[in-house]
């Protein structure tokens, strides 16, 4: 599995916040190069890391791009929808 960005929380916020995953799902129409570009743009990943996540989406059907506080996860989901990727917010198990 590709390494997922996990936000470092303070002890206080960890106690009250359930971590949330930002999950991107496979879509056969959207180009792989475009998905890589979006991951680089939104998360600031280098190409190699962005491509690893893109391949995970392609091969496994989805990839967790980020895990952390709800508010920031929602902001990432909104950004990714702005690029028309299939993306959902999910509770981290």
């Amino acid at each position, binding site marked *: 599995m590709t390494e997922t960005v996990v936000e470092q929380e303070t002890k206080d916020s960890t106690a009250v916040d359930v971590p949330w995953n930002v999950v991107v799902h496979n879509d056969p129409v959207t*180009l792989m190069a475009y998905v890589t*570009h979006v991951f680089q743009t939104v998360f600031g990943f280098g190409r190699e890391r962005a491509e690893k996540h893109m391949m995970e989406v392609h091969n496994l059907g989805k990839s967790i791009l980020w895990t952390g506080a709800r508010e920031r996860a929602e902001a990432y989901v909104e950004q990714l929808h702005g690029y028309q990727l299939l993306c959902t917010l999910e509770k981290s198990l």
Partner: protein
Amino acid sequence: MEISRPNETTFLIGRIDPVLAELMRRIVPSADPGDSEKANARIFSSPTDEVEEERFFQDWQELVQPELAKLFQSSIEIVEGDLKKMRSNPATGEATLSLPSDHLEAWIHGLNQARLVLTERFQLHEEDLEADPPPANDPRSFMQLQLHMYAYLQELFLRLLERR
């Protein structure tokens, strides 16, 4: 097709094949989901699969979706504006497009939207995208050509974006 860079802020795309130029003129109408439920559902997909997140989904529809619609529309308007300035050589039919480098993102986005909407509106499946071209009299053959050419342009513009 020839690509040059007359200055730091512009790409000049010349000798665009007449067929490709015609397909480019169709980007804007192709990206319009109209009243297609499937196309609208695809470009405004749900941000959650979790049943208990109904409130989040409602807020999203009320607050976020209109902003997304504006964002998508702004990209389409940029593409439309650039296409209005595209000129064709009457002798050869080849076109020339002047593309400001800060419009590349909008083009990449607009092309992506056009591919998503076409696929949903015409109910193409993954196998249709990969398969050999259908017979020439099959309406899907034109759609396949359109999708492939838009993918080609999207990849080209992604490469230009790296050189910006």
